[in-house]
């Protein structure tokens, strides 16, 4: 009788532990999805800020058409890009095109002093910070998830329930190196 009770208790305990471990895996996996979505949210925010920026700069430096067209073209290309590698490349184009727009302000003191421009500059800098933090959080989440499905005891559930390893977001060599600003 006692033996049966102990056996029953052990089975129940193991069952409860399994449920907890399974839930923690689901939670970590969902966090990765959320982190990925957050990157897109921030990228979208940057796309939305670009037309405003172009309009503001036009008022002061209309003849810098080439630089302004370049940033619009880069933005549209990034919006149309498909696949992570393509996308990453397009985003880098946007970043460097934006830098050139901000470099323009050095030559136009009125633009540099414009309140709207200053605010947009802060917004875009903030958004770029958020983009890289979102990527960092995505990679941290992938690291935690991958570690969890490779270590005991969750490795058992992960194998049985087909939890697959996730891939890291890797910045390519172009974005890792210093950004070159051309004039």
């Amino acid at each position, binding site marked *: 009788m006692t033996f049966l009770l102990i056996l029953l208790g052990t089975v129940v305990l193991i069952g409860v532990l399994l449920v907890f471990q399974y839930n923690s895996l689901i939670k970590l996996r969902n*966090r990765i999805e959320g*982190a990925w979505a*957050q990157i897109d949210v*921030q990228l979208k925010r940057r796309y939305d800020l670009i037309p405003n920026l172009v309009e503001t700069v036009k008022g002061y430096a209309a003849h810098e058409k080439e630089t302004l067209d370049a940033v619009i073209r880069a933005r549209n290309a990034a919006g149309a890009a498909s696949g992570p590698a393509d996308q990453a490349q397009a985003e880098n184009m946007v970043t460097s095109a934006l830098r050139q727009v901000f470099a323009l302000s050095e030559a136009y003191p009125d633009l540099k002093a414009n309140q709207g421009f200053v*605010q947009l500059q*802060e*917004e875009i*800098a*903030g*958004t770029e*910070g*958020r983009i890289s*933090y*979102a990527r*960092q*959080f995505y990679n*941290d*989440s992938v690291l935690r998830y991958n570690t969890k499905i490779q270590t005991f005891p969750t490795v058992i559930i992960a194998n049985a329930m087909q939890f697959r390893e996730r891939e890291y977001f890797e910045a390519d060599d172009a974005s890792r190196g210093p950004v070159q600003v051309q004039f």
Partner: protein
Amino acid sequence: MDLYRQITANKRRSWLLIAAFVALVVVVGLAADLVVGLGPIAVVIAVVIAVAGVAGAYWRSDAIALAVSHAQPADPVAHARLHNLVEGLCIAGGLPKPGIYVIDDPAPNAFATGRDPKHASLAVTTGLLERLNRVELEGVLAHELSHVKNYDILVSTLAVTLVGVVTILADVSLRFLWWGGPRHRDDRARHSAGGPAMVMAVLGLVLLVLAPLVARVMQAAVSRRREALADVSAVALTRYPPGLLSALEKLRDDTTVVHSASRATAHLWIESPVARLESEGRQAWLNRLFDTHPPLEERIQALREL
């Protein structure tokens, strides 16, 4: 030592301190039993009183700390940079965005409060906003958010509660002793009063007198450990040690004192807001025992090693 090793080491050391703290409570309880025969029930009562006293403060910790330091909500347009930096760091740490406040004070400083990440607030002085550049400010904000992420308000509340338990126990025992103590234990003591029992009683008495002081020293040690932890956790968020490093250097070189801070809220700030007298030798060592923050020089050195 690398970043993650420093984080684990700091966490382990602060929990060891809490464990030692609990041991102190047990020892003080035993001493109270030995000297005046209050027994384990006294410990339970002291714990209940201390928890009741601190619970309210813990629950409303953000509102209280913000009101005491005259913090005003930061305007999202006027303080766009502040809002942007905090949002970015929250994304990096997977935290909800806390309430953001500004304190009109020329001394550069900042603090975080709130019982959990969902009820957290972060306040910076106008002096800090004026003096730090973007990366430095980001480092300081990351330090504050790390306090939120590491549940430091909970840890420091725990420490305050334990100080309360020790103080109540010591206080009540000494009063009982003064007024003669419970009778029944006196009888027993009279029958068995020998040399060793006498020595134990004196030891217990000394312990009861010193315990509240020891408890304060331990509370300060816990606070210092959590500060060091928040520094390294901040770097784990920004991945850029020079930001916080140069911010701490600026804080070190600044001697303005926050007007609206007191000893009661000292453990919340990034830099100890209470003015320190320049003391030397033995006195300095004694003062350091009660400091809520490690010396800035030590913190800068620890960041340099990352």
